[in-house]
Structure formats: structure tokens, C-alpha cells
């Protein structure tokens, strides 16, 4: 099995093409519904079926949504944009061509700043264009036949093409997540990867630094963030092996198999296809005015970068934490929901979420939106910590248990009786007891061995089954040791 073994002499070059299904009510060129999951071919009109004589008419909302995206990534919006036909034969493509954009896409020359492990980087966005989605072919329904459902045919997509600016799987996934967050924040897509409304193709090649781009392989239709990272890492390892043994990478299209965690070449489709792009004569140039753009600009919802700034100002978060929280819509929603239940300790909350909640999500391969512990529950834990009712260590344990057993945080704290002991008198008693038990150590401490404080704290913790409030305990011990 190939694995990314660390690239001392190779530089990875990654470009991503993301297909985003737009959340319009009707299709790009027909008035059929775009609902997911309807019975086969009940949302395929005479236009979607490419009946003889039918013609396309452009959906205004799809254009507006493309403009919104362009504004969100600092891109230029074309004042005149052209639809082109991409010609090829496949049963899920009824017309025998896809209406897409070739020269003159609606959005071009954009960029996105991402933050990967503390470092900031700009990824260029070459273009984002409108095109129609194809239908679905299902190969395991009937014996010896493939079944075609054209409900999806004609659904509006924007295809977002990045510059080959990414240099690692982590960078690619960060970029991907930020685009995901943007399209969801804008409300132009539900970004549902399982249902296919957010799909990613990755172009990966290796080169020796300073040299020209190497031959790239395209991995198609990856539908989860985790799979993207795995697929890219696998592919890097595979290409590294080929190049280091003196071979050449094939320019080909591959599929990622999540069960085997590997990529393999696609069999069909790819005999050299000449798409013969030409401007679609059934459609006229799309004109977009400055006025339209400025009206759309006025109505844009909050974008990740603005959210980050707001998190810094409103919640007083550190820059890096704000960056990470704002770059994922699910994460930012989780945080904000929790924050409305926490009075002021936002940084504490952020720390807890970023290390503990995200940590558990990663460990169990879950998206945070599917975390079994709700943001309200996490807010409770953080509040208890900040009220010194429990310690951070205890909060982590409770979180773990709640996650595994799906029980309420309050129930766990009660049943395990792990409420922190903060009672000054109680703690003083215990502390005094310990100091009386270890007079030699007390003397050593007074003579300068400061490290022994840890020993005293540890002893009290042992006596109290770890429930002593460490801060209060420290204060009491200090007082006792200095005072006597």
C-alpha cells in the first residue's frame, strides 16, 4: 500500500476542481424541481430529456448565486459571459452535450487565504463557471443493464477551479473546507457531500522543486473531507514510488476507493475525448451590470473572514483560534451556540472545543455537526470549570463519558460525584493534614525546594480522589507554608 512517506526531494502540486450544486428551486435551464431523492425521472421535463425542438432559458437566481460566490472570493465578475457546449456521448447526458462555460466564465481571477498549522497562504481561484449537472447512472439495479435517472440532469452547478497552488493534503483540505464554509454561509448551496451537492476532483502531480510541473493524475468525485485527504496522500505515495523507480506517471483519471483506501484508474470515458467547445447558439451572451453586482454585494451574508474578525472583537479570541473556528461553518455554529450559554469565558470555551470536542470528532471520524454531545452540554462543562465546580481534567473525563454513553453531563457529574472540592475549610483541613504528615518536606520547601509544592498538591489530590480544586488548593498551601 502506498503511503506518503515524507517528500524530501519532491514537491507536491495540487489543484482542486469543486462542483457545487446551487440551492435554486428550479434547474439551470428548465423549470423542473431540483429536489433530492424523488422517484426516478419524475423531475425530468421535456427540456431535461432533450426532446426534439426544446430550448434552454437561463435561471436568474443561479447567475446571482455565481456572482455572490465571485464577490466572496475577491474575484472579477465578467460583464459579458458566454455559455458553451461541451460535446460528448454518455447516457446521463441527454443532449449529447453539456451546457457549460469555456472562454468568458462568469467569475474569474479570485483568491482565498487559508491558515494551515499557523501559517497563512493564498490560493488562487482561476475561475468559477456555471454549468448543468448530468443525470445518474445506476449499474447494479438490473441484470446486464444500466439504469438512467435524469432527475438530476440540468441542476445548476458552479465549478470552482483553483490554481495549482496547494502543496500538501492538509492545505487542500483546508482550502476545501473554507470553500465549503463560504458556499454554506452564502446560502448558495447546502454543501451536502453525501448527497452529492459538493464534490471535489483533485489534480495531483509531483516535481523536483524549481522544475516545471510534472504529469498529473486526476482523482474524481471524492465526496468527503476525510477521503480527500486520504486520496491525496495515497496518490502522492503512489506517484513518488513510480518516479523514484524511474517510471513516468500516466496522465489519467482515477477513482478513490474508500474501502481499500487507494486510487485506481477509471475504465470507461477516457479515450481521448475532443469536446469541441463552441458558444451555444441557443443562448445569448449574459450581461451583468455594475448595478446588479453592487446590489448583490449589499445583501451578502457574513463570510468566514468577517466572522473571524468578529470572533476576535466580540469574543476576544486569539487570532489563530478565531481563524480555525470561522473557517468551518459547522465549527463556528457549534461555538456560537455554545457561547450563548457561557457568560464570558469565551477563550476557555474555544480552547475546550478546539482541543477536546474537535479531538473526539477526529478520533471517531465524525463531522462536528454530528457530535453526540451538544454545544449546550459543552457550554455547561465550561461554565462549571470557570465556576471552579469541576477541574479541566474532570471536564475532559465527563465529556468523554458523555460522548461514549450519550448520557447527560449533569447526570455524570452527579453519579460520579466528581464535583470539585472548593470549600476553603475542607481544603485547609486536608492540606494541614498532609503538611503535618510530611514535616521533612515542609522544611525542605521552606529552605528553597519550590518543586515540592507539586508533591503537596499531589498528596492532597490523592486524599480527595482528585477532586480538590487545584487553584484554591495552591492558594491555601501557599498561605499555610508561608504563614507558619
Amino acid at each position, binding site marked *: 500500500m502506498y503511503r506518503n512517506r515524507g517528500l524530501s526531494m519532491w514537491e507536491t502540486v495540487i489543484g482542486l476542481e469543486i462542483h457545487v450544486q446551487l440551492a*435554486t428551486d428550479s434547474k439551470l435551464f428548465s423549470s423542473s424541481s431540483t429536489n433530492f431523492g424523488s422517484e426516478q425521472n419524475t423531475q425530468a*421535463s421535456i427540456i431535461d430529456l432533450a426532446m426534439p425542438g426544446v430550448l434552454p432559458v437561463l435561471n436568474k437566481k443561479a447567475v446571482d448565486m455565481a456572482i455572490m460566490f465571485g464577490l466572496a472570493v475577491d474575484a472579477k465578475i465578467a460583464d459579458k459571459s458566454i455559455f458553451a457546449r461541451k460535446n460528448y456521448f454518455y447516457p446521463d447526458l441527454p443532449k449529447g452535450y453539456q451546457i457549460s462555460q469555456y472562454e468568458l466564465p462568469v467569475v474569474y481571477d479570485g483568491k482565498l487565504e487559508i491558515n494551515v498549522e499557523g501559517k497563512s497562504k493564498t490560493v488562487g481561484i482561476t475561475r468559477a463557471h456555471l454549468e448543468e449537472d448530468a443525470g445518474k*447512472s445506476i*449499474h447494479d439495479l438490473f441484470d446486464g443493464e444500466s*439504469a438512467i435517472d435524469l432527475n438530476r440532469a440540468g441542476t445548476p452547478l458552479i465549478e470552482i477551479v483553483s490554481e495549482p497552488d496547494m502543496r500538501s493534503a492538509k492545505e487542500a483540505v483546508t482550502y476545501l473546507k473554507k470553500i465549503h464554509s463560504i458556499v454554506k454561509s452564502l446560502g448558495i448551496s447546502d454543501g451536502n457531500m453525501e448527497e452529492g451537492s459538493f464534490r471535489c476532483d483533485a489534480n495531483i502531480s509531483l516535481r523536483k522543486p524549481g522544475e516545471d510541473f510534472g504529469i498529473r493524475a486526476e482523482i474524481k468525485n471524492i465526496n468527503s473531507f476525510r477521503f480527500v485527504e486520504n486520496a491525496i496522500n495515497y496518490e502522492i505515495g503512489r506517484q513518488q514510488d513510480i518516479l523514484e523507480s524511474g517510471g513516468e506517471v500516466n496522465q489519467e483519471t482515477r477513482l478513490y476507493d474508500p474501502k481499500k483506501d487507494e486510487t485506481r484508474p477509471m475504465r470507461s470515458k477516457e479515450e481521448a475525448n475532443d469536446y469541441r467547445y463552441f458558444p451555444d447558439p441557443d443562448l*445569448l451572451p449574459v450581461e451583468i451590470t455594475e448595478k446588479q453586482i453592487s446590489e448583490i454585494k449589499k445583501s451578502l451574508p457574513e463570510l468566514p473572514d468577517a466572522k473571524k474578525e468578529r470572533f476576535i472583537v466580540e469574543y476576544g479570541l486569539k487570532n489563530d483560534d478565531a481563524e480555525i473556528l470561522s473557517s468551518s461553518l459547522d465549527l463556528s455554529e457549534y461555538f456560537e451556540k455554545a457561547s450563548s450559554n457561557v457568560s464570558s469565558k469565551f477563550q476557555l470555551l474555544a480552547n475546550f472545543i478546539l482541543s477536546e470536542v474537535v479531538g473526539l470528532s477526529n478520533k471517531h471520524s465524525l463531522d462536528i455537526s454530528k457530535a453526540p454531545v451538544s454545544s449546550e452540554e459543552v457550554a455547561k462543562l465550561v461554565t462549571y470549570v470557570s465556576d471552579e465546580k469541576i477541574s479541566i481534567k474532570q471536564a475532559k473525563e465527563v465529556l468523554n463519558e458523555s460522548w461514549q454513553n450519550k448520557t447527560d453531563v449533569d447526570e455524570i457529574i452527579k453519579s460520579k460525584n466528581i464535583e470539585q472540592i472548593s470549600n476553603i475549610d475542607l481544603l485547609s483541613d486536608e492540606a494541614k493534614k498532609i503538611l503535618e504528615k510530611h514535616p521533612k518536606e515542609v522544611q525542605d520547601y521552606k529552605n528553597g525546594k519550590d518543586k515540592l509544592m507539586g508533591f503537596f498538591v499531589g498528596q492532597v489530590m490523592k486524599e480527595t480522589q482528585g477532586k480538590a480544586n487545584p487553584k484554591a488548593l495552591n492558594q491555601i498551601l501557599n498561605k499555610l507554608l508561608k504563614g507558619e
Partner: protein
Amino acid sequence: MDTIDSHHLGKIMDKKIIKKLTYLSKLSIPESDIDELSKNLDNILKLIGEIDAAPTDGMLPMAHPLDFTQPLRDDVCKKNINRDANQHDSSKTKDGYYTVPKILD
């Protein structure tokens, strides 16, 4: 190829090119017809090759005869699809799906 190379006019449509074109356009031409087809296509190319000498420097290509821009449709969903009427030719469908010979991926 930026201009039509007039040296090649006369015999462009050889078997190889016709094979590629029939692959792209999903046609099949019987062997016995290829010679006649090749001749006809070459004559057509000769005819259309006359545009090569046209004085088009600085001219923009004209995709549409009139200078209009694309009208936009409101995003309203119309529930007027009659699957049975669309699929009245039932020889091509099964349970509402269109069927084709199994595609290997």
C-alpha cells in the same frame, strides 16, 4: 492549425480521420462506403476552404445575427411533468428508468 493549408487540400479525409470523426459522432460507416464518403467530404472541404482567403482581419466572429443579450427566467419551479407521456415509448424504460446495455466503469 491556424489557417487551412492549401497544399493539403485534395486528400484530407483519409481513413484515419474518418475513423476519429465517426468515433466522436457515434456513427459507423461500412467499409464499402468509405471511398465515396472520403471523396465527397474532400470536395466539401475544398468548397468551404474558400473562406480561408476571406479578408477577416480585425473582424469579430458573429455567433448570433442580432445583438441581443440573454433573457433571465425567475427561479420558479413548475410541477408540470408527466413521466408517462414522456416515456410513452416503453421499449426503452423499466420501472421509470431508461435502460441501456450495462456500462462497465
